[in-house]
């Protein structure tokens, strides 16, 4: 290794009894230079071997804390069945704790064997970091997954990650607060929701608790509106990749922004959505400060943990409202949680073994049920035991995209928050989105 040269020139400098200025500077420069060279070279080199004396190590990195207690057991079962493979499971707390570690590992050329790709699945795939799982696992394997899960991770006929947990979004509501406000039944369209909100607001409660912080959470609400306006779930997929003719200033986008704007103006959401974090919004709901909550299928597990048992028994869930009566209730449904496999790691084959095991029908279904998560495969959804998850999974056929995978797309979240803050008009925001996305693409 090059650094050894640097170390030895320093060492010989120490060995000399006469330490003078020149020696010191030379030694320092040599050390500097050696370290610099070594590091630059390291940055370009490939991944490291991860096997020693016959056992292969497979690292699994994610932030899927909902399986913090259940996944280790499954992993242990796997290791018992495959004694020559050791699995290092690391579950970070949040994406913000996870992403620096992942970015550093990638820049050092040492990508974990199995990792949560976040929104980088496709870009990593194009750069050769994540493996093409269509090739590795075959189309048959992928058939069981919902189309949305496969689509979101695909580029052309290559697929760079597997959906681990599907999710759908809906509106959780508190029937007691509805009754107190004189609301009957569930609103079907956005106009109905606006009416409900007026009644609920009159009782002094907030209507829909929602977190528009960070800006990408706001996109969870807004992007499905584009599908609702166009009735075409592939529209956003093309916009996401900024394909020819697709711009954020196109008419469907502006129309969706206008709808969003109308909803905000009608005081459907609580004050200060852009300052409310995800768990704060949930707190508003289960402490009774808000009658409804717009969020996804991770909520039921969280409510069991944080809300009173009484509350857990009484809350209900309804579909995302449609744009008009009779229209489809398009709901956000892409998998926020997925797994990608490192293309460059020497333990790639072992990693694929681990994945196949995790997804084997009995193992996968049990794991999903034990952690109250929504599975990403049809066969596992059929075996879901939690009634809330079952209900939300039944909306998957009406699923549409809501995650900005494309290069620079997530920059559209910032201008979007201006709609929630009522600081800019829909037309302006559309222009700002286009500029921001183009800028962020670099």
């Amino acid at each position: 290794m090059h650094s050894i040269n640097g170390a030895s020139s320093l060492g010989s400098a120490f060995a000399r009894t006469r330490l003078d200025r020149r020696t010191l500077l030379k030694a320092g420069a040599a050390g500097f230079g050696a370290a610099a060279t070594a590091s630059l070279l390291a940055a370009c080199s490939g991944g490291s071997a991860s096997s020693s004396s016959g056992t292969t190590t497979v690292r699994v990195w994610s932030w899927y804390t909902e399986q913090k207690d259940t996944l280790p057991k499954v992993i242990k079962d796997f290791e018992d069945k495959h004694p020559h493979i050791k699995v290092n499971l690391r579950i970070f707390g949040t994406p913000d704790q996870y992403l620096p570690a992942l970015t550093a590992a990638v820049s050092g050329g040492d990508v974990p064997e199995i990792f949560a790709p976040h929104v980088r699945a496709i870009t990593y795939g194009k750069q050769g970091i994540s493996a093409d799982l269509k090739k590795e696992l075959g189309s048959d394997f992928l058939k069981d997954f919902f189309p949305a899960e496969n689509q979101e991770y695909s580029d052309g006929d290559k697929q760079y990650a597997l959906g681990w947990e599907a999710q759908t979004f809906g509106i959780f509501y508190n029937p007691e607060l509805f009754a107190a406000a004189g609301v009957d039944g569930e609103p079907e369209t956005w106009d109905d929701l606006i009416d409900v909100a007026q009644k609920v607001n009159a009782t002094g409660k907030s209507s829909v608790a929602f977190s528009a912080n960070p800006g990408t959470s706001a996109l969870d609400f807004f992007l499905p509106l584009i599908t609702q306006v166009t009735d075409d779930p592939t529209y956003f997929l093309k916009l996401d990749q900024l394909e020819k003719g697709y711009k954020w200033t196109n008419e469907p986008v502006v129309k969706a922004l206008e709808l969003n704007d109308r909803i905000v103006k009608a005081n459907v959401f609580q004050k200060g959505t852009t300052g409310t974090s995800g768990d704060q919004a949930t707190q508003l709901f289960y402490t009774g400060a808000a009658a409804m909550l717009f969020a996804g299928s991770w909520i039921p597990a969280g409510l069991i943990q944080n809300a009173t048992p009484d509350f857990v028994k009484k809350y209900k869930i309804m579909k995302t409202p449609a744009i008009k009566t009779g229209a489809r209730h398009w709901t956000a449904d892409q998998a926020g949680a997925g797994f990608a496999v490192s293309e460059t790691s020497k333990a790639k084959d072992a990693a694929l073994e681990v994945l196949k095991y995790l997804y084997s029908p009995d193992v996968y279904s049990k794991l999903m049920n034990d952690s109250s998560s929504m599975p990403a495969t049809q066969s596992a959804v059929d075996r879901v035991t939690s009634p809330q998850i079952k209900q939300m999974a039944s909306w998957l056929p009406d699923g549409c995209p809501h995650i900005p995978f494309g290069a620079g797309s997530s920059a559209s979240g910032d201008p979007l928050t201006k709609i929630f803050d009522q600081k800019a008009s829909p037309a302006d925001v559309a222009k700002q989105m286009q500029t921001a996305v183009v800028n962020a693409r670099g």
Partner: protein
Amino acid sequence: MTTTMARPGQVPRTDRRPAAQQRRRRPAPIGKSFASFILIAIAAFTVFPLIWLVLTSLRPQNTIFTGPIFPTHLTFAAYPEAWVSTGFAVHFLNSLWITAATVAGVVIFASLAGYAFAKLRFPFKNVLYVALLATLMMPATSLIIPLYLQLRAIGLLNNQLGLLILYVSSSAPFSMFLMRAFFETLPDELVQAARVDGATELQVFRRVVLPLARPGMATVIIFQFLQTWNEFLYANTVLQDTGKLPLQPVLFSLMGQYNTDWPTLTAGLTMSIVPVILVYVWMQRQFVAGLTLGAVKN
């Protein structure tokens, strides 16, 4: 014989009392109560969030936000839960050894260098000093990737020793500035007198100067222990195997994106605060309380 501190020509009084008692004679009774009142008010403001922290660790989980301020139902269940589910013992020991070694390394290097910059003259001293200052000038987050690459090049990635070296390298300069400041308050004549008495530079440092630097060293020990004990970002990125992680990254992984297990988290945090308080109290008694520069007389 004291080194001369009074103005030239001043004859020191021979009947003065020890300095410590001297200081205590100065305050007047009225000033005392008023000062005490203010201090107690500030202390209350300061300590209240931490009381909340401990209280939260004693609540059942679903009363965190819905219950009253003072919980009606106390439970210690979170503590065993925190102990077991985070593998507290292992990570606690990791933190302990990494922090202790870091503090030791920093104190040694910072004292040596701080003294050199304060009292010794050598060429390029100022250049080096300014260069070392650069350590304090970069946000930590911007250095993660370069440091990761550096450690990787040297083969110390995913290695507690690598993290230790990283900590010492990036913290020693700050402690060095502290030590230098303290050394500068010591009179030059002290050093020169020792030299004249035939001591080597190292002896001067060890026997004469170092014992007087106790307040500085105590401060450095406390600061360094704190900073290292609480560090999260580098440890999280540089160490990959969970078994090697110190305490903080493990505790923070309890803060989920949507759900946080508050009682377990606060229980873990409360337990992790204990060693730091112990170090602080120990330092207080050893060095800071009742110290005087009367040692100069020796």
